[in-house]
């Protein structure tokens, strides 16, 4: 079976099928997953926004689609969703930039 692209939105619907080749682990994963996203100390909306930010960090198109819908369903709006992504982006940028200190340390060792 050859496809011209790696990601097909239709594949998201087949996520549940991962149990076909290893059911006990899949069952554990899905029940854990469902538990994680239930309203708790954090609201369902807050969890969906975190998931949306993480989805952008791991750059998973399935998760981005799923948590865009998820955030809207839980009552988030565009502004909150975009702010969540900026949080992800800021951590990404910061986590590169903070290594600048290592570069600076090493450069200082090497130079006069």
């Amino acid at each position, binding site marked *: 079976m050859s496809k011209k692209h790696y990601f097909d939105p239709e594949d998201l619907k087949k996520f549940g099928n991962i149990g076909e080749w290893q059911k006990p682990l899949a069952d554990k994963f899905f029940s854990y997953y469902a538990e994680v996203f239930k309203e708790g100390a954090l*609201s*369902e*909306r807050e969890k969906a926004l975190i998931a949306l930010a993480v989805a952008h960090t791991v750059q998973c198109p399935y998760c981005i689609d799923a948590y865009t*819908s998820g955030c*809207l*369903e*839980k*009552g988030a*709006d*565009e502004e909150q969703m975009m702010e969540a992504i900026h949080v992800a982006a800021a951590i990404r940028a910061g986590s590169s930039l903070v290594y600048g200190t290592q570069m600076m340390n090493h450069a200082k060792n090497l130079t006069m």
Partner: protein
Amino acid sequence: MGIHQKTKSLSSRHSALADTFFQLKVLNSKELTDMRFPLFSEKIKEAGFSDGRIKPTRIEIFQVNIGKLCNQTCSHCHVDAGPDKKEENMGREALEKCLEILAQYDIHTVDITGGAPEMNPNFRWFVEECRKLGKHVMDRCNLTIVVANKKYHDLPEFFAEHQVEVVSSLPHYSALRTDSQRGDGVFEDSMKAMQMLNAVGYGKEGTGLKLNLVYNPTGTFLPGNQASLEAEFKRQLKRKHDIDFNSLYAITNMPISRFLDYMIENGQYETYMQTLLEAFNPAAVAGVMCRNTISVSWDGYLYDCDFNQMLDLKVAGERTHINDFDLAALESRDIVLNQHCYGCTAGAGSSCGGQVA
């Protein structure tokens, strides 16, 4: 400030969907789509309604749609209401007939809807008469009507004086989300109206004056957890606008009228029906609102609910008009079901009264 109309009514656009028969054909896969969905009547057998029929429990709510005239033209409106609907509005005679029925039977609540029901010139008189009969009165108020014209500015006082429960649509605490469904400027005017309602005691503890909100998704997705949405609406409306309200009811968009049109235009109809079907919740069937409500149209016909009314699916049986209202017959009828009923059984279920499964 004022509001900008979001769209035009299907009838003024001469859309094929203005014909309810055409809508039913789409819902039953005889027009525009080949995708087949199981019959709702078959599906509810899973919920223990083994003969595929739903019966009323008892008629407790008399819902009157007193007209399609509205100051807004929301993109999802199941009534196809708008400022152009000058004809389809209930006259004095039919309202008097409703009062006669209400006087005769022990139906405790009158739920007045539209359009913007307050635009009907008989509205205030009708509310007063219902109150004289000792009925609990609910008004489905779109909020913006309160600030639309000077003659409506005193509606909050009028509601308070008659202890009317105000039930208002507000799809979001964000202006962008709200206006994208209801028209530019609607959010701002809605906030003003809610502040005016708060000022006379609505939504405030200890006053007994109820201001409830109806949330519906601003797109082709399902509503989230009602309690969680209510908490977030309360927090945001208080924080940004110093507004209080009592409860929030999360309802699902029904795949009829202008929302159906919107979905077809945007290629979303089949996916949405699939979403409703996948979210089918057997536990929600027992709580559908048609079981304790009777819905009356501007011209006096009887329906199982406001949605059936807009699809012109009259109650089953011979007596389908207020002029030959027969409570006993109505309470033993079969509710007329069709494919749009999937909108009432998705997820926690969808009831304008706030009961969720």
